[in-house]
């Protein structure tokens, strides 16, 4: 799939109402409220590429998927359809290019796909920017919001949190 097509398919999905997207998603058990398990799995892989595990925990281990799920359900339900469209679009691109879902790709393949998205046309690039921002917020905010489990990200950067 060419880069422009990738971007346009994302744009089309983002504009479609959520119920159509749910059907387009192949009968997944999607609730209008939150992301499905499959969507969360794809999301977790994206987040993990943004803040990968090294000698310190990565985004998945820090609980970023829990954080974003809460952020969407409790604060920004208007973004759920955007997330859903974006995640499905990435997965679709992954299947067309590699013949497998995004979560099944190797880390390098995932990174390459995300880099292309980051440089892509506005809808794709903006969706990536949104996920990147939320991933950073999940990693580096107070654990009470769902991410930064055990304050591990704060410990990594030696952020003093004795008032928090």
């Amino acid at each position, binding site marked *: 799939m060419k880069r422009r097509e990738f971007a346009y398919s994302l744009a089309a999905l983002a504009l479609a109402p959520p119920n159509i997207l749910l059907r387009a998603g192949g009968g997944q058990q999607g609730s209008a409220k939150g992301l499905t398990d499959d969507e969360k799995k794809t999301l977790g892989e994206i987040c993990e590429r943004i803040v*990968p595990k*090294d000698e310190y925990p990565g985004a998945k281990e820090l609980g970023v998927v829990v954080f974003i799920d809460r952020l969407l359900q409790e604060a920004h339900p208007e973004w759920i359809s955007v997330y859903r469209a974006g995640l499905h679009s990435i997965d679709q691109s992954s299947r067309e290019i590699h013949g497998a879902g995004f979560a099944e790709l190797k880390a390098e393949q995932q990174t390459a796909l995300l880099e292309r998205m980051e440089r892509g046309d506005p809808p794709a690039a903006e969706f990536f920017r949104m996920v990147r921002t939320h991933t950073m*917020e999940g990693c*580096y*905010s107070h654990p009470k919001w769902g991410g930064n489990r055990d304050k591990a*990200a*704060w410990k*990594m950067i*030696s*952020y003093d949190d004795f008032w928090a």
Partner: protein
Amino acid sequence: MSTEKADAVIVGAGASGSVLAKELAEAGLRVVLLERGPKVNPEDFFLHDELLRRETRPRVGSEELFAPREFRNQGDEKFQVLRPSDWGYAGEAAIVGGGMFFFGGLMWRRPPIDFRMKSEYGAVEGTTMEDWPVSYEELEPHFTKAEYVVGVSGEAGVNPFEGARSKPFPMPPTPIQPGDEMIRAAAKRKGYHPFVVPVGIATKEYKGRNPCIQHPCCNGYICEIGAKSTPVSALLPPALATGNCTLVPDALVKEITLDGRGRPDGVRYFKNHRLVHQRARLIILAGSAIETPRLLLNSASRRFPRGMANGNDWVGRNLMGHISPWVWGVTEKTTNEGFGPGPGIGFDDFYSHNDGFVGGSVIYSRTEVSPIAFTTRRARGAPLWGPGHKQYQRENFRRYLRLFAPAEDLPQFENRVEVSPTIKDKWGIPVARITHSFHPNDFRVWKFMRSKMIEMLAEAGAHDITGSHVGKGGTGYQLGTCRMGNDPKTSVVNSYGQSHEVDNLFVVDASVMVTSGGRNPALTIQALAFRFADYIIRQWETGAWRAGRREV
């Protein structure tokens, strides 16, 4: 619904309105202080939580309190509608205490040259730059009073560019971080004159208030222990203690009302979905440089067809902000031990008389940074995610160094606030429409200050030095719009904040400023407010504004 007539009704419980409330109530006037936002108890509020601050950005207070606005850079452009969360909205606060409730703390006296810009530089084409109708020397006692009433900490006698002061600071300066020391040493090597910047933060117990605990999340956060010198910690408690001041939160003012003879006699405001008429002898506007002219323009009548006190069409004109470059980098050594409050070392060596342009600015350091904000503080082109980003985050979080310059934005007649003929807020009140673009001089100041800051960071040993961008216009601080002056043809209020047209109408907020200066405005706003309050009290005691005494 109507209420008992007050001596004075004040619109806006922020930096200036709270000064007026305290001073007038202590002088025995019965004051009603209206604030569109809620009253929040700092101790019940969220603490220093970066995520919550980002989520409530750009201001505290419910989003629905903020009407949409229209914005454009030039007269020939179409207006864009801005929502409160959009960049460029130029939002202030909607909360009892105003923007100072969560400000960064900078409390500057403006240097003497700021009050005589035209005499100093001559006229500048395309601007309405003018001398102020009040000098530094006249305002000095009010600067001192403001510093002592609200509580300012700082280092006196070190900055040779500062005006003479009649008293030292009431509190010693804030502790600074290793990065600030790097800037101080670098500035000295360059032959500049560095000093610890003055802040409205208690560095010792002050009038029953707690001293600062040096939390690193300070700028933009409400201080739950009350160490910040804000209207809530320093001005409203004494105002309310007099028993003469009634604070009404969640009160959104719609218009100024007139009596049968066409004289302003109060305001009408929405409270719990009902329209309330508050009558008062004096009407004192303190709603910010955008909301104050909006209210005046929305109070048009047969007597004031172009808006209240706007016979000369100067209401809303000369909107200014600051054109503020900032520059950051990282060093090889620790710049911050993990403490706030943040403002560090400043120097005024480029404040004025630079080559090739008018004005300038202070430059000062801020070493504090919070974890989420740091994720985007990268050199241009550096990765914003992935393994390299994560490594940079942990290697450099404590090595961050930043300089800031709140630089001069010259006043221009066509930079203005009007009211929209088409868009109304949810109360049916026409919203503000803003036109603002920078003058060529502003860009020169911006470029110059930015280059000086880059030089300074390099001298201090920083690398990955990166600077902010600049847009075509827009205001971060809002100033101007109801200029003070001696000539009623070219100003809205006199040097005491009193309308030239209506003697019981005052504008006491940042709207009155003639030029923007190169400093954060809070202390100047409050010094002016103390001056205006003095005048009102003196006039009140001589019997002005008693019913029937004076007619316009």
